[in-house]
């Protein structure tokens, strides 16, 4: 007797293929980041960083970033204008907590603009030569420096000298403004004697 073999339908089930594919799509859609890195430029200055011996004891605007000894690692900024007036500023959250929002770091550029404005009134033509020093305590939070640098950028790019030697894009332009290293040491010594810097 001849057995009749039943012919089965040979078909690959593809109806679930789309479901699998859509699951994959959802995974890749969720894991895709279209966001980019956000930040600001910190230029690489040329290698020669020889300080020139100009401007020995010229008046300067000095900003000292210090760390507060609290668990939240807030920072304090002391600004000394060319006449020796000292103003204190605090990190945003600390100033608010202290009930002195006008002492928040975001007000620093207002004060600095005022200083430059005054110097310009007194010495027309010379105002742009007022150097700005930024001294940062070793242990101060990184945020403190970034916030101050941000404020300083708001004021005037050409007026900035830097200590310790961090960055400025156009070092050539600045070279004539950077005082001798000893002068900066003297300034620090002076601040220590006046009790602004702690050690």
């Amino acid at each position, binding site marked *: 007797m001849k057995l009749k073999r039943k012919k089965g339908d040979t078909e690959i089930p*593809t*109806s679930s*293929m*789309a479901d699998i*594919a*859509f699951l*994959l*799509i959802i995974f*890749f*859609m969720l*894991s*895709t*980041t*279209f*966001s*980019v*890195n*956000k*930040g*600001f*430029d*910190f*230029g*690489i*200055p040329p*290698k020669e960083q020889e300080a020139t011996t100009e401007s020995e004891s010229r008046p300067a605007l000095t900003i000292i*970033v210090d760390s507060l000894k609290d*668990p*939240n*690692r807030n920072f304090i900024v002391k600004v000394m204008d060319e006449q020796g007036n000292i103003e204190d500023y605090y990190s945003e959250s600390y100033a608010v907590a202290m009930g002195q929002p006008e002492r928040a770091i*975001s007000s620093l550029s207002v004060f600095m603009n005022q200083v430059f404005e005054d110097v310009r009134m007194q010495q027309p033509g010379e105002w742009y030569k007022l150097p700005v020093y930024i001294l*940062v*305590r*070793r*242990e*101060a*939070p*990184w*945020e*403190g*420096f*970034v*916030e101050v640098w*941000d404020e300083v*950028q*708001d004021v005037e790019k050409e007026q900035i000298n830097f200590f*310790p030697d*961090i*960055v400025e894009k156009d070092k050539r332009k600045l070279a004539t403004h950077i005082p001798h290293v000893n002068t900066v040491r003297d300034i620090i010594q002076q601040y220590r004697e006046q009790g602004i810097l702690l050690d």
Partner: protein
Amino acid sequence: MKVKRQKVQEAYIPTASMSDIAFLLIIFFMVSSVFPVDKTQMDLPGWGDVKNYLEDSAVLAISTENLIYVRNNVDRNLTSIAGLTNDRVIISASDGRTLSQEIYQHNSTTWDMSDPEQFQKLKDSVNEGLIKKVELRRMQEGNRGITIVVKADKKAPFYAVDGVIEVLQELGGQAATGIAILSKREGPAPIVGAQ
């Protein structure tokens, strides 16, 4: 005469091409997705006028072990809380294509960049772990400019970031086109053209 009822045609939606469409979409998302190379948790400092950098920039991340992160329930951002003061500074790096790896760590209390030996050690680590890889990548990609982004937590100590930047400035000249500091946007939008 008996009218023969017309055969009812079966209604169906053609789904055979559905998977093709889906795979096209998959390929699009696979190609366009960039996985972040550095997964270090960070609470970045704020900056008024931020610039955008490519997601595949080389990354140098600086963190300390004493930082604890809390996720804000409102905007899902991380907030860092500093814990103990004496701890390790950890530096990890990535050339932008591979996941970041730890390249250097040092005790925070004895960190001193004025010590030439220590400075040289950090310099060598950064050179091996980052600069050489960036140079290689640059060669492979036809001299395309690569930015090195420095990713430092806002509560990280200044000396650590300062030391790393100093090293980068000495080393990065040929390999990288620039150094950028990562930050988050803060404050009102800058007024364009205002003086």
